[in-house]
């Protein structure tokens, strides 16, 4: 049986990769993908904890997080499309009408 720590290390690595992606990416859609990576890391940690604790609460939470992620994706991508219509770019550097 793979110990809990291994799963947590994987979750930590994905979370960190996602965090780096949000900070360094230029394209809004890539920033958004990185955020999805962070959420996946949290979900993975939650499921690993859930097995460790022998409790199903974590599974319910993950189910909710996935639903919320889908909702956020719908709203976020529609905002990106609205922005694109206004200025023909999906790069965060060019979203600079106001000081970033």
């Amino acid at each position, binding site marked *: *049986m793979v110990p809990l720590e291994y*799963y947590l290390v994987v979750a930590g690595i994905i979370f960190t*990769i996602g965090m780096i992606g949000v900070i360094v990416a*230029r394209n809004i*859609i890539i920033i958004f993908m990185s955020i999805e990576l962070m959420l996946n890391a949290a979900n993975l940690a939650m499921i690993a904890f859930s097995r460790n604790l*022998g409790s199903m*609460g974590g599974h319910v939470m993950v189910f909710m997080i996935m639903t919320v992620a*889908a909702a956020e994706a*719908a709203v976020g*991508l529609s905002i990106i499309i609205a922005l694109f219509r206004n200025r023909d770019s999906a790069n965060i550097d060019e979203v600079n009408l106001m000081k970033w």
Partner: protein
Amino acid sequence: MDSAIAPYLFYLFSFVVVVSGLLVVTLRDIFHCALFLILCLFSVAGIYVLLGADFIAAVQVLLYVGAIAVLMIFAIMLTAKVSGIGIKQQNEQVPIAIITTVAFVAIALYGLGKTIWNIKTDVAIPDNTTMAIGKLLMTTYVVPFEIVSVVLLAALIGAIVIARRN
């Protein structure tokens, strides 16, 4: 899943998750990024199976791989002008990222070494997690289950309002 090959599968899936995750944030062509994101999310579903979370693994494939990733590819197609090959995808905040990452990893490793986990191995999660989750959603977690529908509704209206043409 507690068979002999489980650890090897775990290493395989973890390797794919980490490598494809790295590719998502480093590749230049945004369309390739999206494809590697799908691979990454798919491998996470594999790890869920190893953890005995069959329902969550199925939802992961349906929702993340099936819905969110496709939605992203839609967005990439609709904003196609910027998805060309060779555009540098990183901005100038790389030093900030390095500092944040080092700090975060240091704290996490420190925590990992110090924590005594509240392990209750005598309680195993049920074989059929779908039924258990269904029961929980209808009893203990009925409030969140109702509330999450409002999240979806608000997002639905919001997405329509903001993306429609005049």
